[in-house]
């Protein structure tokens, strides 16, 4: 019998239609991946099955779990089912755990709430579960607190909580999005093993098609609250019917061709850069210790070069970015732009030549300013900023260059989508024609189709303006296509630096090899989905 059966599920909140006639099913022991871009309704589908919808939501259609109609259950009955019959793993392991309770107590909580076992046996069961998810008793006693664990370890605890009562169905909402690639590979492996072992159904929600292709038995592609295509993974991958599915896969694997860089002449030189952070004092009189986030890093970025910087979270790449921008001081070493040393004191001569695009398209702008004011902020560094019609012409030209309309200058940022905001951020970085632009995870928060557009835009701008940039990212597939040369950073040090193709084709350092091996790959699609 089908484990989870969703038939013609429609959901509206107020007048807003979230889901339209969604039908899908999950069998026992099967991994079904629901994928789609933001706003496609994939998370709402999962929340419907959990009965965790906002109170104002109205539903029609049916959701049945082993023949029980979930939509007809009262809240008390749903509480019984949650944890017992359905387990859930959330995206953000940093917030999914209660910081003041030990991991043992949190795993036991599920067992105790459902009165499945008396407390002493529940404790033993919690221990077994933590062992099962790979947190061994000697290193991870039950008394550990969440803050003592890394992101991947916390996600293991969350999974242990979800499978505590051997639910028939496990729902995982973007379980690896917040994790590094090497950790992601381990967590996906764990989930796959658990499904086989417990004969659970797993409904995994993810935007990452490489993960989907790698893990799922069946794929459900959603857009605007509708299922556009569904099928067994291999069949669907090799025979995509819907244009949206084709577009999605093409965009995930989007390749661009960069123009040839000019002859190398050094632009940015980083020589022996060291950056320490003071740690909190252990006691009042002890000298505070230091954490060395960037250890003796040296590299050169040449004029017209597109340089990548890859590393996992905590490797020091953001710290290095801030040091290059002159936002934070170095403890030793030197960073020079065109021969001038970069320091934290404001030097307009240097400021004018360097700009930055940040990751978060929502936090990068003052919400109270209009676009024209936002993108002209770097004019502050100019000796004679353009005024009057020269200014408005430049604004219009820059907005057109990033694919927006000149009329957009009078709007506020909240009127734009995430991808459009990232275009505005690029416009701001571009307007003074800086010699160097830093992209700090600039496409990481974007949907794949939007990301593909932004990558195309970067190539166009490279051709038009001969950009030099440092592209900082954890996403190997993006770095591979958008850079000429690439640096790999681990624990504050650059472990490998070579031409990008060389690094991917022939990685020398073991860490680079591990990174490339862990990154989920889209299979080669013979039909050429583009």
């Amino acid at each position: 019998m089908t484990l989870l059966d969703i038939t013609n599920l429609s959901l509206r909140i107020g007048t807003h239609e979230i889901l339209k006639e969604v039908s899908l099913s999950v069998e026992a022991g099967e991994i079904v991946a629901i994928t789609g871009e933001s706003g496609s309704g994939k998370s709402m589908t999962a929340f419907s099955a959990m009965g965790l919808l906002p109170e104002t939501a109205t539903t029609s259609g049916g959701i049945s779990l082993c023949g029980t109609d979930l939509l007809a259950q009262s809240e008390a009955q749903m509480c019984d089912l949650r944890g017992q019959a359905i387990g859930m793993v959330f995206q953000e392991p940093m917030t999914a755990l209660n910081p003041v309770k030990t991991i043992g107590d949190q795993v036991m909580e599920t067992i105790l709430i459902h009165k499945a076992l008396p407390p002493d046996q529940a404790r033993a069961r919690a221990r077994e579960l933590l062992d099962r998810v790979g947190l061994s008793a000697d290193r991870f006693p039950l008394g550990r607190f969440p803050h003592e664990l890394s992101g991947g370890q916390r996600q293991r605890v969350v999974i242990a909580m979800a499978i505590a009562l051997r639910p028939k169905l496990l729902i995982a909402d973007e379980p690896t999005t917040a994790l590094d690639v090497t950790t992601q590979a381990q967590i996906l492996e764990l989930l796959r093993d658990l499904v086989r072992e417990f004969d659970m159904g797993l409904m995994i929600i993810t935007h990452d098609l490489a993960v989907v292709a790698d893990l799922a038995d069946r794929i459900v592609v959603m857009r605007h609250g509708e299922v556009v295509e569904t099928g067994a993974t291999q069949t669907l991958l090799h025979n995509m019917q819907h244009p949206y599915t084709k577009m999605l896969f093409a965009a995930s694997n989007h390749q661009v061709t960069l123009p040839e860089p000019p002859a190398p002449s050094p632009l940015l030189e980083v020589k022996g850069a060291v950056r320490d952070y003071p740690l909190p004092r252990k006691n009042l009189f002890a000298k505070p210790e230091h954490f060395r986030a960037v250890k003796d890093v040296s590299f050169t970025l040449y004029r017209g070069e597109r340089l990548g910087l890859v590393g996992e979270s905590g490797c020091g790449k953001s710290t290095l970015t801030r040091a290059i921008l002159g936002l934070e001081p170095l403890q030793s070493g030197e960073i020079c732009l065109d021969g001038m040393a970069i320091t934290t004191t404001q030097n307009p001569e240097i400021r004018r030549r360097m700009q930055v695009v940040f990751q978060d398209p929502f936090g990068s702008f003052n919400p109270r300013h209009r676009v024209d004011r936002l993108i002209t902020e770097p004019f502050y560094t100019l000796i004679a900023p353009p005024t009057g019609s020269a200014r408005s012409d430049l604004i219009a030209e820059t907005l057109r260059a990033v694919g927006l309309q000149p009329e957009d200058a009078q709007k506020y940022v909240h009127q734009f989508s995430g991808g459009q905001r990232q275009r505005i951020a690029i416009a701001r970085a571009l307007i003074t024609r800086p010699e160097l632009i830093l992209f700090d995870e600039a496409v990481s928060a974007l949907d794949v189709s939007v990301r593909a557009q932004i990558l195309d835009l970067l190539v166009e701008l490279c051709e038009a303006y001969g950009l030099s940039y440092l592209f900082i990212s954890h996403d190997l597939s993006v770095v591979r296509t958008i850079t000429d040369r690439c640096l790999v950073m681990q624990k504050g040090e650059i472990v490998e630096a070579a031409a990008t193709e060389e690094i991917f084709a022939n990685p020398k350092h073991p860490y680079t090899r591990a990174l490339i091996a862990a990154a989920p790959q889209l299979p080669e699609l013979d039909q050429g989905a583009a």
Partner: protein
Amino acid sequence: MTRNLILGTGLSSLVVLAALVSFIWTPFDHTAMDIPAKLQQPNGNHWLGTDHFGRDIFSMIMVGARTSIAVALVAVGIGMGLGVPLGLAAAANKGSWLDEIIMRANDLVFAFPSLVIAILITAIFGAGAINAIAAIGIFNIPVFARITRGAALSLWEREFILAARVAGKGAARISGEHILPNIANLLIVQGTIQFSLGILAEAGLSYVGLGAQPPTPSWGRMLADAQTMVSFAPHLALIPGSAIVITVLGLNLMGDGLRDWLDPKLRLAR
């Protein structure tokens, strides 16, 4: 617009209106004594009755509103005018000696019970409205400095501030251009609440005779005067008491309502 905001604004504007009208018109001269008409209950002629000198209570309440509002307004002005720049400076130089000095000085002021020190100040420099204003104002400074620093610190971490720094803007310019407009909501709400506390403090100081001096009417002193007669003329105490309650309640409701209304995050949550 919530019920709180409407009710609060209504009550507060009633008090402000009374204070404004008192400049051009009051039913009687609030200083004119009329001994034969003393201690009257509220009636058609004297709407809220008369006190032990036969002065019209309604007129005194109206003029008293003026005193309360003036004292609280200037006190909040002092608190904001000094506290906000101090808080912005502390946030902009987080962790520096300037930050330490400003915040430890704030802690020092906070460490003393405000009303007791206000009494001390007025006792040393003499009773009077000006000294009361200064005393209340000084204790508003750390309130605004702290709230400004706290809110500004989280903004300093935002990427649009980093972008402004990359554009070469200095701390002072970023504070004025980016930080202040984004914490204005918070300051307005806190200002309303401090305003009501200022009115309470002024009433308290006047009650012990350290606030506005006669003949300037003050709600606090009216309460003090009524104290001995509360057994046979309770309205003498009830009326200024109610005036204080209504004003403070109105301002607090307004502050609460404003916070809900101005904070887009809370608005979405509802």
